[in-house]
């Protein structure tokens, strides 16, 4: 069994399709939704965890690629711009999962462990340098 975080973009043409239903029904995946949004243009964004066999996850990804769903390569809706981050550490006490954390105590650089991010966006609200942002 494996878990994979994926970030989907559903263009207007795909909005009517029950994508999540197919992931569950056809590929036997357990879905955990972090964040979802439908824009005024009737486009959808979705950040989810899928849990299932590796084979089924791969097949599900193929199914989505074959339709017009756009899989964001970074697999996450929350991004940190490395050029804007100054490693101040203001986000540290706001990130609930320690996705943003310090590894090397000497340099005190703020590292971002993507797998731990639950897309709560607390860092977006608390980054004074505009380094953390959501792609939607």
């Amino acid at each position, binding site marked *: 069994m494996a878990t994979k975080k994926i970030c989907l973009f559903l263009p207007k043409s795909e909005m009517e399709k029950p994508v999540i239903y197919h992931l569950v029904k056809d590929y036997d995946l357990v879905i955990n939704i972090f964040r979802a949004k439908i824009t005024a243009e009737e486009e959808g964004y979705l950040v989810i965890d899928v849990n299932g066999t590796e084979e089924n996850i791969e097949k599900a990804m193929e199914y989505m690629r074959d339709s017009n769903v756009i899989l964001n390569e970074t697999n996450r809706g929350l991004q940190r711009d490395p050029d804007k981050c*100054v*490693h*101040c*550490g*203001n*986000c*540290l*006490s*706001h990130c609930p999962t*320690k996705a943003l*954390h*310090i590894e090397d*105590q*000497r*340099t*005190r*650089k*703020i590292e971002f462990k993507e797998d731990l991010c639950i897309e709560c966006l607390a860092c977006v*609200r*608390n980054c*004074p*340098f*505009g380094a953390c942002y959501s792609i939607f």
Partner: protein
Amino acid sequence: MKNHTVFPHSMKTYEEINKKIEARKAVVLTADEIIDYVEKKGLDAAAKEVDVVTTATFGPMCSSGCFINFGHSKPKIRMSEAWIEDVLVYTGIAAVDAYLGATQLRHNDPANMYYPGDFTYGGGHVIEELVAGKKLQLFALSYGTDEYPLRELRTYFTINDLNQVIMVNPRNCYQNYNVAINCSERPIYTYLGYLKPGMKNLTYCSAGQLSPLLNDPFYETIGIGTKVWLAGAQGHVYGEGTQHCPNVERGENGVPMEGGGTLALTANMKEMIPGYVRGVSLKGYGISLALGIGIPIPVLNPDILKRTTVWDRDIYAPVIDYSLDYPQRNSHIVCRMSYEELKKNEVIINNKVVEVSSLSSYSKALEIAEIVKDDIKKGDFLLSKPIKRLPVEQGINSLVVRKKN
């Protein structure tokens, strides 16, 4: 504190150290490296060997800004009001001179009308964009005079079009700083970030053992005229910073356990490096400017060297309740904490786990200390002897709100 009024005796002189720098033979270490080095070599041997220790800091410094001269338009204007990217600049000086302040909000920013305000763009960001070479809009108004007839002007410019852009910061490099916590039951938004209710998190803001004035607690080498690395430009200390207050509680090592001294700095903004001049948006509070600053300390004698070996364990900061004691100017402090403790992910206060945030970037400070070290080693950065010492005995006044009579 020790009542030094003259400069310290020296074993080495500025001239000798500068000669070694020019010959590219100076021995330079960062304030981070010097701790282990002195431990290993012994103080006296290290004092003979090492010529310079580099210190640095990177963090928001609200009392910053720059003087700008735009040059004259045809026909000429005597600007009475002006905005860069809709951010008001002060024009109560000569015709096309202006001062752009770091905390100025953008015109029409709703501020805290819809609390907490976002403050996404202001003076600090204009300064960042100027240094980054962006094209910016200038809009100016005037009442018109015989020799300055133009009454309105809109144009676009970059930093290269300006005659002078001189950063003039009345207060930078606070020697030490408060740690902010929230003891109340409501969330608060401060210049030290968002503080959760019930003491769930705190924020500190100092480079600790790397910070310039913590390595020279009695202002023996950092004084008026000292050359500094201000965001990549070689500038200098032009005076004591505002609120400079050496008369504070100090540890046995002489290091202030609260604010203490400050520096007024200036440098040519055309020589600055973009990444070290950054606009800051603080939700619910406003705009600021984060600056990278490096200051070399000449090792004139073993005492001076000893003070640069101060480490986070021996530097304490006061934890203050920003929901009540800070705004009400009460003298109460929650506790004192060393920077060693603060650099852990969480601390314990009154049997409660408190998560730690920081607004000062140690990683950037380290980077700057290394850059200044390399510049000195390459012979590109000479030291300057201060022309005057910063006040070593001085308190601070509060504003008395009194009736007129």
